[in-house]
Every structure is written in structure tokens, then in C-alpha cells.
């Protein structure tokens, strides 16, 4: 229409102004000015919801606003992309609304499981991720049985799917299920193993797709590793739960797995040959490639591990059966199978050992071959439980083990070392059995290599720990294996070498690896317990003492003490270390000295100090510490323990944190009771008397003096057995001690009652001594008199406080009932003290301030009144 219009215009224009416009052919006409734009433009309109009628506020929706129901419907959409998106949507929704899942768990699962056998690879992958990251973690604690059975039907369906991809993926799904519900394997073991067998039979189809196969195989390894394979492990699991429960309670119901074993065994029988042939298929591929590629290596490793695990399981079950009943119906069958399977394995599989790299120069390849060879060795050694292998084969394996121990095989790189350690860990548990079985020459070589590796390897590694537990098996006698017969001289040398290593290891471990230290200490303890069996073992154990010193104290020259790791270990390890001391046949003074220094360490836990005292006492009682050493240990502790803060005597209940006086008091009482139990009281007293007095005269701090006096009175009896000479020494010393006590304690006078109880603690031992020897009291009183007299000794500098102190000591004595009675018989001495005080007051030589004079006066009047009081009392009693 437009062109015609234009032409009419032209005609018109021609008519008006006749201007002719030439138009060239082929040129496009410019659009007319008034042309209507007929173009239709549209923008996409996004409707958040499809129907206006559905009201979705308050419902859980994902980002796209779809509810769970809609999403679940979409999972069965014919378009793969939609299905995938729906799964992603569900994942998103469940992330934001976890409650949805717990509400509609079964609905979700019923819908999702249909996707397990989905044709599209991406859909399955998404489903896997969804199950793994959201669904399974959330359904952990629920009723698992239904949940699993819902899934399993579809997984099995997928396992028999025509497409290989789907099949392999199904194994991956099953692996996921097993990861989250380990028990489910036992429920479906038969079917699953059957499926594995089927798929592995057809391996030639997908040897190309090794990645998938690897996943399936690793699932198999996981399943098989759940089978019990070791009696000890099972036992230890049971032992662990000895907790805090009620004593006579019913056992909690644990589902027993053993019922399913009878089904698993025949399946494994069928599976083994398939695995072996599968492995054989890999061999040429592995060897033709110049470098051993990772995936086929992984597959081979998985296959070997599966074989190993199934053999271990079989051994476990047969040994169980043997224990339970000798003549079970399947007994004959089992032995038959044992025969066939071992010969089969020996002929087909183990002859391939050792796998050697074709290309000598690849390090990685070397390590891989080493790994495979280790698993080979494991299989072989497990088989050895049944059969006596041909010597040639055995030698090959022994040779491998030896060179593995010597570290000849692996490359020197760091990763190589790590791999070597990891695999040695697997081999170590077999060493004890091998050593007890192989011929002498090999035994010697193995032990040599073993000891060398043990000494060389890093003390902080887990390998060292594994070595320690292996050594434990070879040192501690057990019922099934006896290593400690005297004929095994060559073994003995190694045993001694291992024992020597233990204390060094302890010192090397320090306090950084408490769990390792504990394992070593435990071994040491066990060794101590059985060391009496064999004199050379005993000798080895006793010799540890020299090395152990460093465990307690590293060096202690010129007063600078450097504590060993013992002080910083956890308490249970410390206790273990102490228990070891009990089993030395003779505890040497040097070690005791280090321990005593540890006790004096201010950081030590007081409970451990008490424990040390207890254990040493027990050891003494068992006759393994000489009495002199034991006594000197106690005396060192009492005389050198430093109480801090030294001169403040706050309330006892308050001072637990700040002061360690309370600790020292309990140490004192423990020492006293140990001394009492040491033996004949009189003899111990005779030994101790001079030692204690020599220490006391050195004037250590008051607390230490008090402690030693307490020991003295515990051992003494009424009347005293102190010699005349010691009484004189004590007489001189005690007067000063008493004055010092009062001087230190009663600095402020407002809290009187606390001070008097504090004083009492220090006075009581003296009072006991006075009660037992009146002569001593007399001596002390005379000393008082001479101190107060005008030309008194060192106390002359501050006469008023000295007088005050003496008076309060006397007052204390009067307050005590027994001492009060005794003191009244020494009236003249007290009087002379009084006289001296008066003399002091009036003396010209010593100038007293007014205040001091007042103090003296007060003290004197107190004393006088007390003396009068006692006299009155006496008169009344007369």
C-alpha cells in the first residue's frame, strides 16, 4: 500500500511542482514520513507462579517458587534437563527448609529413588550429590530399615541395568548407602556380592573406563572392610564400653551380624576367582604402558585389597567356628574350600609376586609397585595361617619384608617415605608371628632389620608407635606365643636393645606427644610386671634406670634445675611412670634423687607428689629401696620443700590457691605415717634422730623445722628416747624457734583466734617434746630467762618485742592443759624470767621508748596474772 500511496503523491507533486525525482533501480526507498511501524516487539514476561489460584505464601518454595510437590513431580519429567533442574531445586529447597525433609521424608525418597536408574548421566550425578549432601546427613538418626529398603530395590534394579554406566553408578549409590548406614551391607550382602561378581566377570567391556570401575571397586573394599576380621579388634570394641552404667544391668541389644556370615561365605568363594582373573587382565596393561598409570593402579590395588579382606574374614569365621563347635556340619566343606582356595591363590595370584617395574626410572611407579607388593605380602601372610607355604615363595616374601624394613625399595623422595611408612604399618603386625616361625637364619635377618628400622625411624611418627606395640607382643609373654625361653639368645639381644630404646624414646617424645608417651609407659609397666620371668630381662629392665633419670631431671648442676618431660605430662601418664618404679628390683639413689627434685618443683601437681610418696613407700615395703635411701628421700623433701609465701599466715581455708602451706602439711603427715610403717619404731628413731637434728640445727624456714619436729615426735615415745646430747641441742634451738614462730605469726593482733590456731600447729610438736622430756622444757625456760636478761644475745636489739614473744609463748604453754601442769613445777624458772623482765625495765643500758615500755609492762602483768592464777588453782587443788 505504501508504494502506491507514494506514487500517487509523486503524481500529485508532479502536479504541484513537477519536480522529478529520479530513482535508480535497485535502490531502496526511504521510508515515508508517516509510515506506521508495524513491527511487533515483545519482552518476556516472567510469571512467578503458573496459576493465580494457588496461594503459596507460607509454603516452602525454592528460588523458582516451586513447592516440593511440584519439584517431585518434575523429577519424572520426560526432559532430562527438567529432571536435573528439579533435583537441583529440591536440593536448594531442602537446604533452606530442612524441616520439609523430615516431614515428607518417605515421599521424597520414594520419588527420588526412581532416578537411580536414570538414563541421563547428569541426572544421576545430581541425584548422587543431592543424596550425599542433604538427604542422608539429615536422616541419620531415623528409622533406617525402611529407608534403606526403599532405596535398595531401585539400586538393585539399576545394578542389573543394561547400560554399563548405570550399573557402575548403582554401585556408587550403594557405596553411599553403606557409608551412612554401615549395617545395611549385612542385610543385602548376598545380592550385592552377586552383582559385583556379575559386573567383574564382564570386565573386558569397560577396561577402558577405569575411573568408573575404580569407584565400584573401592565400594567393594569398603563393604568387605566392614566384615570382622580380627578377634582382638572385636574384643577391644566390646571392652571399651565399660563405663558408668549400672552394675547389674541387662545388655543393650546389639544386632548380631554373625547370622549373615553363612550367606556371605559362599558368595565370597565365587567372587575370589573373578577378582583374581580381573587382576590378571590388568597386568599386561600395566606393563605395556611405559609408566604405570594411576587409575589402573588404583583398580589393581582395590582388587588386591578385596582379596585380602575376604581372606581375613574367612579366617576369622573359621576360627570362630572352631571355638564354638568342633564338628559343625559345614566343617568338612570349609576345609575342602580352604584347600582349593589356597592352592588357587598360590598358583594364580601369588606366583606373580613380586611385581617389578618394567621401566626402572620412574619413582612414582616404584612406589606403586611397592604398594602392590605389600598387599601381596599381606595376602600371603594371612594365607600362612592356614598352610605351610612352599619355601621358595616364603623366601621371596621374607626377602621383600626385609628389604622393606631396611628401606631399600622405596624411592628416597618425601612421598616415597610416606608411602613406605604407611605400608610398613601394615606389615609390622605380622613380624612377631614370623619371628616365632621362620628358620633361624631368617629370624636373625628379620630381627636385625626390624631393630635397625626401629632405632632409625622418627620418634614422633605413627610408625614408631606401631613398632612399640609390635615390640610389646614380642616382649610380653602371652599364652599362644612364648618368646622368652632362655634358648632364644639371639632374640634376647634384640629384646635388650628394644628395652634400652624405651627411655630414650620417652625423652625424645618429651611432652609434645602425650598419647605416644602413654603407650610407651604402658609397655614399660607391662615389662616391669613380668620382668621376674627371666634374669636377663630383669637386668635389661633395671638398666633403664640410668636412662630414665633424664626423664625426670635433665640436669641439675649448680642449682639450675632443668626438669625433664615427666613434670609436664598429663596426670595419668605420670601415674604410669611412677608405677614403673615399683617394679625395679632395686631403686637406685640417683634416680630417687631426680624424683625428689621433681617433687620439689613448684609446678608439680600436689596429688602426684602424694602419689610418689605412696608408691615409694609401697616399693620400700616390697624391699626394693634401701632404708637409707628411702629416709634420705623423705628428709630431703621435708627440709628442702619451700613454702611460699614464706612469712604470711593467712586463714588456712583461703590459702589453697596462693600458698602451698596446706600441701606441705599433708606431705608432712604422709611422711610421718610412712615413717611409722617403715619398720621397728625404735630402730627407725635411732637412725633418724641425728639426721633430723643435723637438719634442724641448720635453721631452715619455720615450716620445715616444724615438719621435721613432727616426724621426730611421731617416732618418739613417752618418755622420750632422745639422747642427752640431742636434748641439749634441741633446748638451745627450740627457744629461738618458739620466739620466731610468735614473731612471724602475731604481727597484727586483731585476728587473734586464727593466729592462735596457726601458732598451735607450730607449737604442738614442741609441746609433745616437753611432755616427754621435762628436762627439755626446763632448758628452754632457762634459755628464755637468759635471753631476757640485760645482756641477752641477738634479741637485744629489739627487747620489747622479744619480751612480748616470750610472754605469749609462756601464755600459750599455760593454756595447754598438760604443759600448764608441767610448767607450774618449774615455777622458779618462770619467776626468774619475770625477774629478768623487771630488771630489763629498770635497766639503764637499754633505752626504751614510752610505747615499748608500755608493751613490756602489759606483757609482764599478763604473765603475773597467769602465774597467780595457776598458783591459786594449785592451792585450791591442795
Amino acid at each position, binding site marked *: 500500500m505504501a508504494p502506491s500511496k507514494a506514487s500517487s503523491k509523486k503524481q500529485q507533486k508532479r502536479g504541484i511542482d513537477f519536480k522529478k525525482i529520479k530513482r535508480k533501480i535497485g535502490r531502496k526507498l526511504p521510508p515515508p514520513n508517516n509510515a506506521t511501524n508495524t513491527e511487533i516487539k515483545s519482552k518476556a514476561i516472567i510469571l512467578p507462579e503458573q496459576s493465580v489460584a494457588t496461594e503459596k505464601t507460607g509454603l516452602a518454595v525454592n528460588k523458582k517458587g516451586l513447592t516440593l510437590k511440584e519439584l517431585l513431580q518434575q523429577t519424572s519429567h520426560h526432559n532430562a534437563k527438567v529432571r536435573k533442574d528439579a533435583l537441583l531445586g529440591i536440593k536448594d529447597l531442602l537446604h533452606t527448609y530442612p524441616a520439609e525433609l523430615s516431614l515428607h521424608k518417605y515421599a521424597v525418597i520414594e520419588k527420588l529413588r526412581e532416578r537411580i536408574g536414570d538414563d541421563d548421566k547428569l541426572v544421576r550425578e545430581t541425584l548422587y550429590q543431592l543424596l550425599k549432601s542433604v538427604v542422608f546427613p539429615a536422616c541419620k538418626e531415623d528409622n533406617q530399615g525402611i529407608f534403606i529398603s526403599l532405596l535398595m530395590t531401585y539400586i538393585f534394579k539399576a545394578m542389573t541395568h543394561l547400560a554399563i554406566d548405570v550399573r557402575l553408578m548403582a554401585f556408587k549409590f550403594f557405596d553411599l548407602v553403606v557409608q551412612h548406614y554401615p549395617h545395611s551391607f549385612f542385610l543385602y550382602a548376598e545380592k550385592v556380592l552377586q552383582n559385583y561378581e556379575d559386573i567383574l566377570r564382564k570386565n573386558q567391556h569397560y577396561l577402558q573406563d577405569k575411573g568408573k570401575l575404580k569407584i565400584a571397586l573401592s565400594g567393594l573394599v569398603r563393604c568387605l572392610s566392614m566384615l570382622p576380621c580380627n578377634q582382638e579388634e572385636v574384643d577391644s570394641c566390646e571392652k571399651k564400653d565399660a563405663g558408668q552404667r549400672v*552394675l547389674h544391668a541387662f545388655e543393650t541389644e546389639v544386632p548380631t551380624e554373625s547370622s549373615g556370615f553363612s550367606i556371605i561365605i559362599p558368595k565370597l568363594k565365587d567372587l575370589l576367582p573373578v577378582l583374581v582373573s580381573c587382576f590378571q587382565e590388568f597386568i599386561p596393561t600395566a606393563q605395556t604402558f611405559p609408566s604405570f598409570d594411576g587409575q589402573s593402579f588404583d583398580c589393581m590395588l582395590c582388587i588386591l585389597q578385596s582379596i585380602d579382606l575376604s581372606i581375613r574374614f574367612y579366617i576369622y569365621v573359621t576360627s570362630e567356628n572352631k571355638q564354638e563347635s568342633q564338628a559343625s556340619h559345614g566343617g568338612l566343606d570349609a576345609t575342602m574350600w580352604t584347600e582349593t582356595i589356597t592352592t588357587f591363590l598360590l598358583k594364580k595370584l601369588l606366583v606373580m609376586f613380586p611385581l617389578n617395574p618394567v621401566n626402572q626410572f620412574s619413582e612414582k611407579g616404584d612406589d606403586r609397585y611397592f604398594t602392590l607388593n605389600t598387599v601381596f605380602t599381606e595376602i600371603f601372610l594371612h594365607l600362612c595361617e592356614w598352610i605351610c607355604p612352599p619355601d621358595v615363595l616364603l623366601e621371596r616374601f621374607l626377602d621383600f619384608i626385609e628389604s622393606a624394613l631396611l628401606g631399600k625399595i622405596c624411592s628416597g623422595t618425601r612421598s616415597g617415605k610416606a608411602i613406605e611408612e604407611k605400608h610398613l604399618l601394615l606389615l609390622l603386625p605380622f613380624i612377631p608371628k614370623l619371628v616365632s616361625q621362620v628358620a633361624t637364619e631368617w629370624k636373625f635377618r628379620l630381627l636385625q632389620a626390624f631393630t635397625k628400622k626401629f632405632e632409625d625411624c622418627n620418634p614422633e611418627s605413627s610408625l614408631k608407635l606401631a613398632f612399640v606395640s609390635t615390640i610389646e607382643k614380642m616382649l610380653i609373654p602371652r599364652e599362644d606365643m612364648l618368646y622368652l625361653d632362655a634358648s632364644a639368645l639371639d632374640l634376647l639381644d634384640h629384646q635388650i636393645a628394644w628395652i634400652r630404646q624405651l627411655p630414650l624414646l620417652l625423652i625424645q617424645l618429651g611432652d609434645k606427644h602425650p598419647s605416644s608417651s602413654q603407650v610407651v609407659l604402658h609397655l614399660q609397666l607391662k615389662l616391669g*610386671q613380668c620382668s621376674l620371668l627371666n634374669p636377663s630381662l630383669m637386668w635389661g629392665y633395671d638398666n633403664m634406670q640410668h636412662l630414665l633419670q633424664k626423664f625426670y631431671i635433665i640436669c641439675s648442676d649448680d642449682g639450675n634445675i632443668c626438669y625433664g618431660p615427666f613434670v609436664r605430662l598429663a596426670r595419668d601418664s605420670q601415674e604410669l611412670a611412677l*608405677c614403673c618404679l*615399683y617394679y625395679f628390683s632395686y631403686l637406685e639413689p640417683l634416680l630417687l634423687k631426680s624424683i625428689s627434685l621433681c617433687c620439689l618443683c613448684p609446678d608439680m601437681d600436689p596429688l602426684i607428689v602424694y602419689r610418689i610418696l*605412696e608408691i615409694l613407700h*609401697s616399693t620400700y615395703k*616390697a624391699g626394693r629401696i634401701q632404708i637409707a635411701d628411702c629416709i634420705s628421700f623423705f628428709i630431703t623433701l621435708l627440709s628442702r620443700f619451700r613454702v611460699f609465701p614464706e612469712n604470711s599466715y593467712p586463714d588456712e581455708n583461703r590459702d589453697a590457691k596462693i600458698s602451698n602451706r596446706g600441701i606441705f602439711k599433708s606431705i608432712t603427715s604422709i611422711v610421718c*605415717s610412712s615413717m*611409722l*610403717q617403715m619398720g621397728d619404731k625404735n630402730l627407725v628413731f635411732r637412725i633418724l634422730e641425728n639426721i633430723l637434728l643435723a637438719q634442724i640445727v641448720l635453721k631452715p624456714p619455720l615450716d620445715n623445722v616444724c615438719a621435721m619436729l613432727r616426724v621426730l615426735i611421731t617416732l618418739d615415745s613417752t618418755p622420750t628416747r632422745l639422747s642427752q646430747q640431742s636434748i641439749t641441742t634441741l633446748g638451745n634451738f627450740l627457744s629461738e624457734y618458739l620466739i620466731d614462730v610468735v614473731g612471724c605469726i602475731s604481727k597484727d593482733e586483731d585476728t587473734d583466734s586464727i593466729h592462735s590456731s596457726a601458732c598451735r600447729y607450730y607449737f604442738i610438736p614442741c609441746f609433745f617434746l616437753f611432755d616427754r622430756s621435762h628436762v627439755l622444757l626446763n632448758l628452754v625456760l632457762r634459755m628464755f630467762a637468759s635471753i631476757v636478761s640485760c645482756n641477752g644475745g641477738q634479741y637485744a636489739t629489739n627487747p620489747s618485742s622479744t619480751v612480748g614473744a616470750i610472754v605469749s609463748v609462756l601464755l600459750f604453754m599455760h593454756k595447754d592443759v598438760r604443759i600448764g601442769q608441767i610448767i607450774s613445777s618449774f615455777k622458779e624458772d618462770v619467776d626468774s624470767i619475770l625477774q629478768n623482765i623487771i630488771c630489763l625495765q629498770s635497766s639503764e643500758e637499754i633505752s626504751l621508748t614510752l610505747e615499748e615500755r608500755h608493751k613490756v609492762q602489759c606483757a609482764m602483768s599478763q604473765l603475773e596474772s597467769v602465774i597467780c592464777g595457776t598458783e591459786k588453782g594449785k592451792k585450791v587443788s591442795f
Partner: protein
Amino acid sequence: MELVVASSSIDGGIGCWNLQTGAEQLRYKSCASPPHGLVCVGGRFIASSQLRDTSASSGSVLYWSWSKPQVEVKSFPAEQIKPLAANREGTYVVGGGSSGSIYLWEVVSGRLLKKWHAHYRAVTCLVFSDDDSLLISGSEDGGVKVWSLLMTFDAYSIQQASTPYMHSFSEHTLCVTDVVAGYGSVNAIIVSASHDRTCKVWSLSKGKLLRNVVFPSIINAIALDPGERVFYAGGRDGKIYVAALSAESTFNNSYGLHIIGAFSNHSNAVTCLAYGTTGNLLISGSEDGMVRVWDARTHNIVRMFKHAKGPVNNILVVRQQFYNNFHINPNMQVSSRRHGSLLPPPLEKYDNSTDGDADFKAVIGLQPTCSESMDAFYQSSHVINNQIKELQQQGSAAAEMERERLKLDCKRFMQMVQQWKTMYENLHEFCVNELLEGDQAGGCNGNSA
């Protein structure tokens, strides 16, 4: 009569008190026993192992009869015996050696029936389970092992079993000081105490640790409450702790988990504990030589006995019939004739089982009276053979006289039976008549009403 018997490690004899009256009985002389070294064999006599010089090559075990303070029988086993135990009937005596061996003797003959190596270090305590079928031993190396006595004599079953013992508990780190067994033989619990400051409760049926109780001090002795509600643990710090077994235990208390409480009047360590057979009494011995009797409910001291200067380390509670005329076994007579006393011969030093191992089997002993318990009385066939031989050798005259006497007795008893029969018949008749008349009277009454 319930007797408390106590001995000490320092020679102070064996003290003996009547628990009810507190009266001291005979004091048996010259006994220095190690812990767990005192035992009352079947209620017939006291046996105790002795502390000797470590240099002495042989140990010694002494017997005292109830009636005489002097040692009557001395035996010298091959090594020093520390703990000693006997089964309830007093058929066997078991001793633990300082090398870790356990010796089992038959009391009547003194034969060493069995010796086996049980522990790495010295055995410190030995206990029979309540039905005497199991022997539980504790050792200085911290091990506690449970032995089945049946199995020790059955060479075949030892071969079959992987271990010669039933259970071996090795969780203690230090010397075991005491073990007690609860009721229920193989299903019982046992409690062991050790220098490592713990007491552990084990189950014999499951063979595992049930409970671990950590105390504030070393526990020297334990005693089980008869109801197995709690057990008492005597500590080296002089306290007797009460720890829960089946009793409720509060979790936050001052002593630790499972410890309900403690009581103490000892200045010194508690060295041994025993539980009275009648009355709710707990008896404790202490380092200072005193024996204290506590009321287990109120924890008050009921009595105190002064035993010796040294530590009391053994306390037994013996229920005794009148020992002056306790029944004499025929075989006891046999042995007494040989030794001039009422006690069996000394224990043999070595196992001389060369003579006829073949006929060596257990025989159920002849039960002398029915009034005794129905417990079987086991003796080895060897002893029975000897007994038969001696019976045969006894002159026929004595047998004849005995028969005459028995005949007379029989006649007398027959007469007596006859008498009783007539008496019973008369009584029966009388009763029937009475009843019938009563009925008639009742019937009359009913009619009249």
C-alpha cells in the same frame, strides 16, 4: 558362738575374741603372718603361713588346734607361702608362693595335689568363690586370675582351652592387695583392690570390668556387704570408704565417683576388714594393733579389741560349734592316731605323685551324719584307700563288740518303736472319738436351736 580371730605381722600370737560378749579366748602362740595368711580350715583348726627371712629357702605353714595355744603341726613348703586359703569344708588348702606359683594340698593326707605357675610375681591374695568351684588369685604384678578347680585337675580340658585360667584381668597397674568374691559362683562379681588407688569390680560371667572406683588413698582391704549393695574399702589413710555396687550413688560428692561416704576412727591405716556372719557388723584391723567392731549401719564403734603392738593384718570371723566335742571324722581319727593329735599331717613339700597316678581320683566322702549339710565331702581315692585298709586291719574283736552293742541298740529301738506305735494308736482312737462326739453334740445344738 561367733569368734573373731586376728593375727599380726609381728609375732603377737593369734588373738581370739567372742564377738557377742567381747570375752577374749585362748591366744595361740608364735604367729607372724603375712596379709591373707591366716585361715580357718573347715572350722576344725587354724592354719597360718609365716613370714620368714627372704633368705630362707622354704616357707612355713603352721596349724593350731582350737584347744591348745601351742603350734601343733609345722610344715615347710618349697618356697615362702604368703596367702593361704581353704575351701569351706576344709578339704583343700591353697597357698600362693612368692615366685607366683600356687600350691594346692589335700588337708587330710597333706599331699601336694597340684602346683602351677600362676603369676609373674608373688601371689598376694587367694580367695575361693562362694561355691568353692573357682579360685581367684591376685598378684604383686597387678594381675587377677580366675581358675576353675575342675579344670586344674582335668588335663584334657586344659589342653583344649587356650588358657589354663578362666579369666585374666590385668588392668591394675600395681600390686593387688585384696580380692573378694560375691555370691553366685560363676555369675558372681568380684572386687579387687590395688596399690594403684583403685578398686575394680569384675564380672565373672562376662569376664570384663564392670566398674572402676578411684579412691583418695591406697586401699588395703575390702569387705562386701552381704546384700552386695555396697562394699567397704579400708584405706591407708585410716578411713573406711563405702562404695556403691548396686546402691545409688550420687555423682557430686567429696570423695569421687561411686563412693558414697567414709568413716574413720583410725589414726592409722586400716589393714584388714571382715564382715560378721550374724548381725550387721564390720570388723576392721589397723596398723596400731587394734581390732575395731563397727555397726555397719550407723558407723559407730561397738567393740574394740587390743591385739598386739604391730599391725593387725588378718581378721577372720569363725562360727564355731563347741569345739571341745566337735565331731571327729573317722579319717581324722586315723591321722590323729598317727600323730598323737587331732590335726592332719603336715603339708608335703613336693608333688610326689609317682606312686599310682592312675588311681588318683576324687571320691565323695562318706557322710557321717545326716544332720550335717548335704554338701559332698570330697577326698582323694588315695585317702579312702588308706582308710579302708586301716579299717580292715582293725582287729575283729573290736568289730565284734561293736556289733553286739549295735544289736542291743537295735533291740532297744525296736521296743521303743512298738511303744510309740501303741501310743499313737491310742491317741488316734481318742481323737476320733472326741471328734465324733463333738459332731453329735453340735448336731444336737443345731437341732435345739
